[in-house]
């Protein structure tokens, strides 16, 4: 059984198609990453899966429940950390957790134990009595992750969980997610536009762009799909460059070699493993290797390959200049 299953999801905002036929399957117990630039439709997809908005067409099952027809059951089965910070600033961390637990009809003792456990795990036990307003961004994120888990959901859905955090807090969140995943046997769906995040956490990654899934595989699998390889640059002396090129090209994992003055630019599978062998071969011809660099293929290369642009491209959100954000959403588009 799949924890999350979508079939041809479409969401239109007036003339804009935010989601354009998304079909996904997330197996139970997996961490699934959704990678996409600003405006790709990540939040829209998450909001449909979490019953906050209705799809224009298509179907989605979460924990086996239909998100359009069995909203209450879906809500009980999932924990969600939305993209924006959504904690009440004028409650204390403890009050916030307790009030949320009561939304799920948890008993008093059960609440107390679970909240204590969670706050300890996210390192906020000492600050539980302070107003959320006094927390740092990273602390608020950790509190929200704890909040999302208070009712022991089987699926945790996070929308850009580390956006706006410094690298250190980001790593703390990653570690936390790993920890919770093991402790609670969670299925995790997270969206991100940080390559590192997708790479370090996800079993499978889907790249979403303009509301479509343009690629879906493991990180390794995605990298294999694209022609760009790792690049090794070897600067050599004491050897004829033509001969050097010939020697290097003969290696089984090398796909092409270019020469730039005294430097060989080598396109290669699995560059880290190839380096020692290539250096040995050149040395056996009497050459001296003076400099080695390796540029490994990254998810960014994968991303550029599938979307034709780097991920950080910003797209301004449209808000009516006449009405601003102050009217029911439908009028404001």
């Amino acid at each position: 059984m799949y924890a999350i299953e979508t079939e041809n999801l479409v969401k239109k905002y007036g003339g804009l198609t935010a989601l354009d036929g998304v079909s996904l399957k997330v197996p139970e117990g997996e961490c699934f990453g959704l990678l996409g630039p600003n405006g790709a439709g990540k939040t829209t997809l998450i909001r449909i899966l979490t019953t906050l908005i209705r799809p224009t067409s298509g179907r989605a099952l979460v924990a086996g429940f239909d998100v359009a027809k069995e909203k209450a059951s879906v809500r009980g089965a999932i924990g969600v950390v939305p993209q924006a910070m959504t904690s009440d600033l004028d409650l204390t961390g403890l009050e916030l957790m307790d009030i949320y637990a009561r939304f799920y009809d948890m008993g008093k003792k059960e609440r107390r134990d679970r909240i204590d456990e969670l706050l300890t795990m996210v390192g906020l036990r000492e600050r539980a009595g302070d107003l959320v307003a006094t927390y740092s961004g990273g602390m608020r994120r950790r509190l929200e992750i704890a909040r999302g888990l208070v009712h022991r959901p089987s699926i945790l859905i996070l929308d850009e969980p580390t956006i706006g955090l410094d690298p250190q807090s980001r790593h703390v969140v990653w570690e936390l997610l790993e920890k919770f995943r093991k402790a609670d046997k969670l299925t995790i769906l997270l969206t991100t536009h940080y390559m590192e995040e997708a790479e370090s956490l996800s079993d499978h990654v889907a790249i979403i762009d303009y509301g479509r899934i343009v690629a879906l595989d493991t990180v390794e699998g995605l990298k294999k799909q694209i022609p760009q390889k790792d690049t090794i640059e070897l600067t050599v002396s004491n050897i004829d460059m033509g001969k050097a090129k010939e020697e290097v090209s003969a290696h089984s994992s090398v796909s092409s070699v270019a020469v730039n003055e005294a430097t060989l630019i080598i396109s290669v599978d699995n560059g880290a493993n190839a380096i020692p062998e290539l250096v040995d071969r050149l040395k056996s011809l009497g050459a001296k290797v003076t400099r080695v660099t390796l540029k490994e293929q990254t998810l960014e290369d994968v991303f550029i390959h599938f979307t034709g642009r780097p991920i950080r491209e910003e797209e301004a959100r449209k808000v009516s200049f006449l009405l601003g954000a102050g009217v029911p959403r439908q009028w404001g588009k």
Partner: protein
Amino acid sequence: MNRFKAILERDLRKFIRNPLVVAMSVLMPVIYLVILGNSFQGELKRLPVAVVDQDNGPGAEKVMERLNALEAGPRTIETRKVSSQGFAMEGLKEGVFKGVIVIPPGFSRDLARGSVAEVGLFLDNAETIAAVAVQSSVTRAVSDLGREFVSVREERTAPHLRPIELYRKIDYDQTLIPGVVIMAIFLGAMTTGAFNIVMDRFLGVEESYFLTPLTKKDIVMGLVGSGLLITTIIAVVVLFLGSLISGIYLWSFIGIDTLLLILAVIVLSTLGLQGLMFVVMGRLNHPRIVGVLGGFLNVIFFFPSGAIYPVESFPAWLKAFAVVNPETYSVHALRALMFKGASLGAVKGDIVFLAVFAAVSVAAGTAAFKREL
């Protein structure tokens, strides 16, 4: 129930974390009372009027008696005898006098003959409201006199005015208390309940609530419940504080049953307005719109409620609005309960209207609420 209580508690906790708002919610209506009480003044009082007596007969004496009685009773005017008409008219021009009464020579003779006896009245038309007040009280004094002399000539009635206040003697700022309590309820309803939804939406906090099993009813009822609690407490405090500063001691003449009826009126008025706010504002997502709409609605509901001027003297179209305005019924009921010692029978109609209005508006507010982004 558990969820409803959780929402209610969350809201109450957030409210008391803002002590300034708590204090302002109580103080502002009381300040309104002081300002309204001192600026409108209800019936105008102590308007200076000059009297020029050129008759010096018994008729003129009677007129003076009547005017003095007016002065001692409702105090609308304060007369001053002036010997020269020219001096009096000068004073009128300068605004020292709001009116000049001239009793012409031969007034007593005309009165005695039963022919038309006329008193001259000069008014300062630049101050219409004062002029109207002077004219009406002087006319009343003089026409009473005419009738008495003409028809019941022999009867020597005491020169006292008819008692014009049927109930306890009420000062104008005291009569404003029901209106001010209603205003406190309106402001309370406007800044609790539905406003919290607008604020949550504005801050993006609502998203996290919508992700939980909370139902539409849990959310609306929880917010209405906390708003009701807060607003009722504010209204009761305003009622007692307002009474205290305008010099009446409610507890000295209000029994427990009247107090319960007052409480019922406050609770039902609050519920109705809370529901109404959900209907009007439940889908907004910017607090600024609440500010603009709230200020507008406050005036729309408050002034046609009879809190300041009697509903009876409105033009027909405004009267029609007053009939459907819940604040009209709240003001009427509170006034009857506070000043006329009314029992349930006298305010039953008001309470039924307020109860129906509350039920309808809360139901409509819940229906209108959108539990989706």
